[in-house]
Structures are given as C-alpha cells and as structure tokens.
C-alpha cells in the first residue's frame, strides 16, 4: 500500500489528540507543558507533509520558524515554572488555585 498525504495527516491528528489528552488529564505543570509541545510538533508534521506533497518549500520554512519560536517559548515557560516553584514549592496545578472562581 502506497503512503499518501492522508496517512501523514492522520498520524499528525493522532499525535495532536494525544497532546490534548495530556493537557486535560495531567496535573504536573511540566508534563502539561510537554503535551503542549507535542501538539506543536503534530502541527509541524502536518506542515512538512503538505510541503512535500504540494511541491513547495514554504511549509518547511514555516516549520523552521515554529521550531525556533518553540525553543524560545520553552525557555521562557520553564523560567516561569521555576519562578512559580520558588514562590509556592509546587508544580501541581491543583495547588495553584489563586485565580479559581
């Protein structure tokens, strides 16, 4: 069976859903952050697949930018988590309920 664009899109959708489930079910901030990263990577896979099957390299350039921004975002996010941990000595979301209504 030949591999088509639909195969890649389906795999990317599955990875995205796994990331979404991680955000819903996990309580550790760092794991939630990792799941967010995973959703971003699923979108990257979609872009590269479209780039390959449409014959344009612009998608790959976009993925390059996404990887760069994701790296910067991870640095800032983890710094926030460290600052939060210093303040509260926890990274569990159920302990961080200051803004809970």
């Amino acid at each position, binding site marked *: 069976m*030949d*591999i*088509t*664009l*639909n*195969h*890649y*899109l*389906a*795999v990317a959708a*599955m*990875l995205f859903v*796994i*990331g*979404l*489930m*991680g955000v*819903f*079910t*996990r*309580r*550790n901030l*760092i*794991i939630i952050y*990792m*799941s967010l*990263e*995973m959703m971003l*990577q699923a979108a*990257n*896979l979609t872009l*590269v697949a479209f*780039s*390959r*099957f*449409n*014959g*344009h*390299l612009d998608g*790959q*350039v976009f993925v*390059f*930018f996404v*990887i*760069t*921004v*994701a*790296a910067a975002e*991870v*640095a*800032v996010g983890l*710094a926030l*988590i*460290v*600052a939060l*941990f*210093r303040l509260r000595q926890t*990274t*569990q979301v*159920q302990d961080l309920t200051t803004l809970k209504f």
Partner: protein
Amino acid sequence: MNALFFWIFSIGMIGSGLTVILNRNPVASAISFAFTIFFMAGLFILLNAFFLAAVQVLVTAGAVMVLFLFIIMLLDITAMEHVPRRKFWMGCSLAVGLGFIYLVALTLNQTPEGAVGIDEAPNPSTVAVSTEVTAGGQTVDHTVTQSEMDLTDDTHQIGKLLFTSYVAPFEVTSLLILVATIGVIVLCKQDDRTRSAPRDEIIREAPPVEPKKETAHTR
C-alpha cells in the same frame, strides 16, 4: 520500503507519545518525548525534509528536552504522582479526542487530493530549481532530476528562501530570541526579598550554631 519505515516511525511516535502522558514519572515522560521527536525526525526524512530532521533532533531533542530534564531534576519532582488519576477527565478527553479523530477521518475520506501517493508527488526541491529567470528576462529550464541532486539540496533551497522571501520574519525571530533571553534572565534573577527567605530557612534548619555559644562563653 518507504511504507515499512512510515509504519515503524508512526507507530513508534504514537506509542512513545502515549507513554509521555501515561507515565507517572516525569523523567520517564521526558525521555519518551525525546523518542517521539526522534521518530518524527525519521518521518521528516521520509518526507525529504533532511534539514528539518537535523534541526528537529538538534534543537528539540537536544536543547529543549535537556532543558526539560534539567528543570525536572532541579526542582526535584522526580517522585511519582501518588494522587489518583483523573478518571472523569480522562474519559472526557478520550471522548473529545476520538470525536476529533472521527472528524479528521471523515474529512480525509472526502478529499481525493490527499490520496496521492508519495512517489507521484512533486519533489519540492526539484520544483524550486526547475525554472530560473536570467538577467535577459528569458526563462531557462533547469529541471534537475532527483537522482542528480545531492541530499543537502533542500538545505540550499531553505536558506535561499530564508534570505529572500522570508528575511523579515527571520530578523524578527532574532529579536524574539533576544527578548526571550532577557525575559528569562529577569524571571530567574532573585531579588533580595525572595533570596533572603530560603537562606533563613537554611539557617533555621541547620544544627544549633556552636561557635556563637563558644564566643559567648569566652567573652
């Protein structure tokens, strides 16, 4: 051959992605995530995106995952989560996820454009170099077959695009990285108020200070 590797990489990617969210040990989750990235780099290679596969391994699996592991070990949250799993939310997210996958499958079924095999698809690098306008205004056909191209060609093409059509976003990205660096320094810099608190704790937790007593006795 291509199909075999596609199935190996995608099943590995989905499996290690599942272990990221199911594992209770954060360190094991981080390592599973690194494996997910490796498998995805394999899929990128199957899609002829060699440059991005290398960048993916270097940046995401190398730098980002090391940062995650570093923070996990720095904060010492290696202890497993002993709280029970959230069954209700797990069911909800599973329902949402299956619904999403159902919608995607429904859409993919109705798009005949997606059913093109990978061998019939045009190679991006070949298309990008196929025509070039010379100084005289004539179009010269430079169609290069895939066998003639060396494997680094997509790197050349991406570099060319980055410094021509996408030069403005490229420069903005450098600004973004600068801002992120400064932001991280500002966030992690301890001011005197927060720095004094843990020090007091350390002093309080330390065993009773002996030298002070001795000096008190001697004087």
